[in-house]
């Protein structure tokens, strides 16, 4: 998206496995159908339905949980570019979510006034939509902020990625983990920094509230569309978030077919071979970080508008881990799989687990406190999935072949591994 590397010799033999033309239409159509259905259902059908149906839907598929899941899916797709496409393990993706969130906090909230004493009377608005009485500070339009956040995160991705380029995968994971731990601490402690602690860049753990609403711009001319998406316009927000998810999916799919995507896949499969074929390793890897991070920035801004604020406590290591679990459970590298994995896992985390608990208690008349067992359930899901369906829900054709290799017996593995061994030895020799 941001960088297109010049590849002198495209890795021809690494053309991605062809996605059948049938499924390449069926999937987007299916998703579009579901999205339209959810919108129509919540916007027009549900309000007319009986109270029981309404409350049933609200309990099992609350619109806010749907929106949240859509945002998780955007993050998961971003991580998928880094982990799934390029095979670079990133354990600190939450950093980009945080940066995106704080970009929203700085640029579309009254908070900018508090940053420095001399900014006290700052009042900037670029097609902004401040809440009533909150028009001081900086208020840029939601869409502008999205673009800015994407760019800022892409830059951050490059900065984080740059020192890791010489490293092999596990060390890379560690550096990203390090950034993922440092940035949240900066957010938490950023209340008094700079000379004499005069600067307040993040408002510490108090967070930044409220974040502006999303303006609908020209679309408000359409009858029924509100001019501002307030806290109860969830179905309209769903269109915004869903549209951005669709964009993320589209970009993911297109990029994968393109030169850059093929270079990523080549690096994932075999870095050595890829570099021999003329894939510029550094630039390709960095662009993976940049593109993946920009998704995180977009998602972070959306998330800030979704919850109406930015709070530092959100950005913990466990978020990175959950995102990774979404990517892996959904099917690494497969856009549809990752999306479904993210939607599913996010729903389970926010709604599903507690609802299943309620049902269980109702049916058995028991009084099991499900919330207190969530760690176990969540952990068990991860372990069982890895044991019995490690290629994920909807595996990428390519990874499936690698992952479905049967367990090898001792004798079998000898032959099968000879190749790998020879390669290792050769590489070692080359190093010396």
């Amino acid at each position: 998206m941001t960088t297109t590397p010049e590849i002198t010799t495209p890795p021809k033999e690494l053309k991605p496995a062809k996605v059948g033309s049938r499924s390449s239409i069926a999937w987007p159509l299916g998703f579009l159908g579901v999205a339209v259905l959810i919108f129509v259902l919540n916007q027009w059908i549900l309000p007319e339905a009986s109270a029981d149906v309404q409350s049933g839907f609200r309990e099992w598929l609350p619109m806010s949980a749907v929106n949240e899941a859509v945002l998780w899916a955007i993050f998961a797709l971003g991580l998928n570019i880094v982990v799934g496409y390029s095979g670079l393990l990133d354990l600190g993706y939450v950093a980009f979510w945080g940066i995106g969130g704080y970009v929203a906090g700085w640029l579309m909230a009254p908070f900018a006034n508090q940053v420095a004493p001399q900014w006290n009377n700052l009042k900037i608005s670029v097609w902004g939509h401040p809440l009533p009485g909150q028009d001081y500070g900086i208020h840029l339009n939601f869409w502008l902020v999205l673009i800015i956040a994407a760019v800022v995160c892409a830059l951050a991705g490059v900065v984080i990625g740059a020192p890791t380029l010489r490293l092999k995968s596990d060390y890379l994971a560690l550096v990203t983990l390090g950034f993922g731990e440092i940035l949240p601490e900066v957010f938490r402690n950023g209340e008094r920094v700079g000379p004499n602690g005069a600067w307040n860049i993040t408002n510490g753990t108090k967070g930044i509230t409220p974040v502006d609403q999303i303006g609908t711009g020209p679309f408000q001319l359409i009858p029924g569309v509100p001019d501002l998406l307030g806290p109860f316009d969830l179905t309209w927000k769903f269109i915004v978030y869903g549209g951005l998810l669709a964009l993320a999916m589209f970009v993911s799919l297109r990029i994968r077919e393109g030169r850059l995507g093929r270079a990523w896949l080549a690096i994932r499969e075999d870095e050595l071979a890829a570099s021999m074929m003329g894939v510029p390793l550094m630039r390709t890897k960095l662009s993976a970080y940049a593109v993946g991070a920009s998704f995180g920035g977009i998602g972070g801004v959306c998330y800030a508008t979704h919850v109406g604020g930015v709070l530092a406590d959100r950005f913990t290591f466990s978020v990175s881990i959950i995102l990774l679990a979404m990517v892996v459970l959904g099917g690494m590298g497969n856009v549809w799989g990752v999306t479904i994995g993210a939607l599913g896992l996010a729903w389970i985390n926010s709604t599903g687990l507690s609802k299943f608990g309620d049902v269980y208690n109702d049916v058995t008349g028991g009084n099991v406190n499900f919330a207190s067992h969530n760690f176990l359930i969540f952990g068990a899901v991860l372990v069982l999935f890895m044991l019995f369906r490690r290629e994920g829900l909807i595996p990428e054709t390519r990874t499936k072949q690698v992952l479905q290799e049967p367990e090898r017996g001792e004798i079998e593995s000898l032959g099968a591994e000879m190749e790998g061994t020879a390669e290792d030895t050769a590489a070692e020799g080359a190093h010396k």
Partner: protein
Amino acid sequence: MISTDLPLQGASADASTDTNNLIELYLDSIDHKAGDYTVELKKYDNSTAAAGQWDEATCAANAQEHVATANEVAVMGEFNSGCTKLQVPVLNQDPDGPMLQVSHASTNPGLTKAWEQGEPEKYAPSGVKSFARVVTTDDYQGTAAADFAKEDLKVTKCYILNDNQTYGQGIGKAFQAQAEKIGIQILGNEAYDPKQPNYTAVFNKIKSLSPDCIYFAGIYDNNGGQLLKDKVAVLGDNEKVKTLSPDGWTGYPDLDEQKEAEGLYATFAGLASEQLAEQEGAAADLLKSFEEKYGMQPRTSYALYGVAGVQVILEAIEKSDGTKKGVRDAVFEGDGITIPAEESATGKEIHIDPASGDTTAKDISVLQEQDGAQKFLKAQPVE
């Protein structure tokens, strides 16, 4: 129907569960009646397993759900000011409301009064307030603690350790401001990291400044046990270097059992549990029946505040027409809500000031840890 909104998973799970249980017991004891209305309790969970604590998205989602549930008239909660900051504006914009929220633990001053820029207006986008609380705000407690340190303990040099959370920072800031005003030297106001294994190094640094008092601005849950242990190990016992703490350090059986706690001062809005137990009243009965049913005392002092919050809501329902707006108006229009001392779960009269939503019961007790219990020492007036 009313609801509670608490973090039921992760580090605050025990405290929240006990709060819910105590509220259930209280509702049972009054037959779920508030005037002509029958009251049911619905429990929301604002935490997720993945986060291990309260979660913004869940808070926001719960707010939607509170508003969308037609017969739910008021919310008791939350435990965390951060979560409250997200929920209040949403509840406030309820088309049938504004919807009343009464918190038992969200003590950040900005929620009800001018604190940071834009507060408290930004929590009332509809123009009228809808958030009340039965706890005093951080600034009162910090101020009272500083006054007490100066007048009764005669300390001159204090060091503040805050837990780097909204509550701890706010209360530490208030303590520092008052202390400096009345002539106590503040040697430092530093955040400690609740996730560190120990604090020996921190206290060694503090030791070189030779303070005669330490103020723990935070809650005991944030590794307070270890903090206290290391404080005593490095600086000496609480007789030698006085230790003060806010109400985040009250009502913990674990704290009472700690031998290092001996001599610890804690400020508390309301009465200590054993005073409540001695004093015949609603709170004593409630604690007794909790003990009978669960075989222990509630694991947090906020449980009683939670009941107090529910009492305010019930009183409001009784005075109202049973609609969301009516319940909210009962608190914020006219004289506000008053719970007399003999009924109140905190053993003190609770009066919600309709202008701000804060409780007017601002007097603060000072407790001292003696022989494994927090004993009432004196009442500390706040101007």
